[in-house]
């Protein structure tokens, strides 16, 4: 029996039971579709995060206090052990290193910002003029923090667009005074609205000189030093020199951690890829369930078509042909389901993409290929037992009864 005839015969018996065929194919479709949609979502999240990082520039080094093997939070905080602080002079020394384009110290905290009767809690960023460039922020009006020695606590601030709108509404904000904590600051600039960036919304931040922030939070230490390296290829060398410099400055104690943006990127990439895989795996379980369904239906089908199978054997079909016929049926159903699932999944991904335009939702090719392959393999695998049963059927017995 030629393959074409086998497929034609199998197809004939499938369309003879359209409802049954459609229902199994639907089960398969749901499996394939969910793999496609969920991986599309996972992949969308991964690409979103990566794009966010990339928007910060990939030649960025982040220096944080404390020694950490991984890129987690600052160690020592949990154990109660205090490591040597990062200080403003550390930041200034780093900025003078060869290969460093600019460096900005960073202190972050939450503070009450008020003007007249209006008051609001805001994320306070203490930094220097270089922060604007390093974080790729854009200015709406006025100036950013003034250049000059970083230890100068000039009482000026730059408001995020949302803060400005809430405190000043339609009125003019530039040159006005606001109260942050127990001090007064003059507004010298407004950031352009740019929304969410790397987990926090710059529209809802207030930037002040780092020295002023340290006074407000009553601390000498820094939260981070952000370092922009000249050129991406210089990143590893600069990382080493930063580590060496801070080691000498900290009495030969290597107590800081330098994270490269690439490392962060790679870590997030790993985490999100693992997440996508996990989600895809869970969705793939439904493919297994669909496979069991195929097995069940094929077993019923073999029982119902005993006389047909007996006939085929009497007409000269060897067991292998009978087995192939039933495998072909399962394969066709699976293919049908996979095709339906692809359409379903792609349509759902498209709709989700429309719903959340921020996420670059697109099912990765490997996931689509894997879903279709798994569907076909599961279908054939679970059909093996019924097909074997059909092939082993005793033709004389099967034909004896109607």
């Amino acid at each position, binding site marked *: *029996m030629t393959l074409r005839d086998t497929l034609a015969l199998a197809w004939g018996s499938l369309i003879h039971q359209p409802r049954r065929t459609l229902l199994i194919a639907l089960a398969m479709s749901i499996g394939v579709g969910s793999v496609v949609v969920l991986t599309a979502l996972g992949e969308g999240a991964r690409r979103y995060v990566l794009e966010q990082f990339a928007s910060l520039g990939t030649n960025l080094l982040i220096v944080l206090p404390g020694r950490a093997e991984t890129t987690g939070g600052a160690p020592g905080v949990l154990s109660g052990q205090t490591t040597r602080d990062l200080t403003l002079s550390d930041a200034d020394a780093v900025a003078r290193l060869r290969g460093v384009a600019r460096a900005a110290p960073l202190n972050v905290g939450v503070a009450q910002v008020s003007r007249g009767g209006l008051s609001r809690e805001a994320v306070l960023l203490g930094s220097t003029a270089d922060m604007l460039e390093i974080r790729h922020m854009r200015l709406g009006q006025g100036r950013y923090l003034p250049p000059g020695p970083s230890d100068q606590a000039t009482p000026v601030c730059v408001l995020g667009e949302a803060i400005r709108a809430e405190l000043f509404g339609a009125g003019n904000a530039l040159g006005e005074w606001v109260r942050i904590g127990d001090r007064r600051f003059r507004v010298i600039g407004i950031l352009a609205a740019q929304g969410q960036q790397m987990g926090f919304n710059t529209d809802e931040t207030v930037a002040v000189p780092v020295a002023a922030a340290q006074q407000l939070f009553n601390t000498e230490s820094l939260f981070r030093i952000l370092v922009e390296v000249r050129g991406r290829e210089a990143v590893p060398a600069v990382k080493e020199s930063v580590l060496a410099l801070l080691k000498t400055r900290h009495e030969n104690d290597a107590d800081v951690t330098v994270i490269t943006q690439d490392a962060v990127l790679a870590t997030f990439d790993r985490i999100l890829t693992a997440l996508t895989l996990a989600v895809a795996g869970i969705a793939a379980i439904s493919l297994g369930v669909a496979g069991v369904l195929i097995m069940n239906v094929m077993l019923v089908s073999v029982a119902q078509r005993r*006389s047909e199978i007996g*006939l085929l*054997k*009497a007409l000269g*079909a060897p067991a292998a042909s009978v087995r192939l016929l039933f495998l072909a049926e399962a394969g066709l159903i699976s293919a049908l389901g996979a095709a339906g699932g692809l359409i379903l999944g792609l349509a759902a991904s498209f709709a989700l993409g429309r719903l959340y335009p921020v996420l670059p939702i697109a099912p990765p090719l490997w996931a689509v290929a894997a879903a279709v392959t798994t569907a076909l393999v599961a279908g054939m695998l679970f059909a093996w037992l019924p097909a074997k049963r059909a092939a082993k059927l005793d033709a004389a017995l099967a034909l004896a009864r109607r």
Partner: protein
Amino acid sequence: MSACGGVVGMIELDRITRGFQVGDQLVQALREVSLNITAGEFVSIMGPSGSGKSTLLNLLGLLDRPNSGTYRLDGLDVTGLDEVAAATVRREKIGFVFQFFHLIPRLTAAGNVALPLVLAGVAPSERKERVARLLADVGLSGRADHLPAQLSGGQLQRVAIARAMSMNPAILLADEPTGNLDRATGREVLALLEDLNQRGTTLIVVTHDQEIGARAGRRILMEDGRVVGDSISPSPSGVPQGRGFIRGSGRGSEAQTSANAESTVPPSPPAPPPRGEGSKP
């Protein structure tokens, strides 16, 4: 070769025994049955239920295997053939007709007749031609596109016979071919089978029907797994040995045409298509 002289039978059974395990009891369906059937014979097998008729027919059709004994088909020992080889022999040499027709309900008459050709891997274009001829032979040209549900019992059995003949088998095995038909339709179907037999096909019919049994050139009576009667009588259309000779001397030959002319069957049945090389050495 062996069949050419008409001396050696197409079918030789030598002390065939077949038993079935039913619970803890061994039921002997066939006890040392030895039987020679010559090419072109029309044999009826009769006997009470459980006498082993169907088991014998299944063995002849290679759907079952004996526990002991030898079965030679066209001089070839087919007793120990493996599953694939047995399927090939069935496809090439044996046609089956069943009491319950066993047509596939979702396939048209033409589709059912084409089934053995499909299994044999015959090309679609050739298939179409041969199916049209086979349906014409059984007088159902106009019903090619009908589904089994749209056909009468007699028509169903004629489709089944066309299917059985589609590979030009040397042997036609019929299990109660008229058992599910009324008398008149049964006679039509029997006439069709006899016509095929006239044209050289060995016809073996298992039946309960005395009338059919009587029409066969050779009547085998079975009881309790044994052949208890085997009588050859001149049938309405000549002696079986003669037909065997004609068949053996080559199909489509003058001799066969003359045999057809003598037959009681209505005028000029179309000559059978040439057999495949494998069907008869």
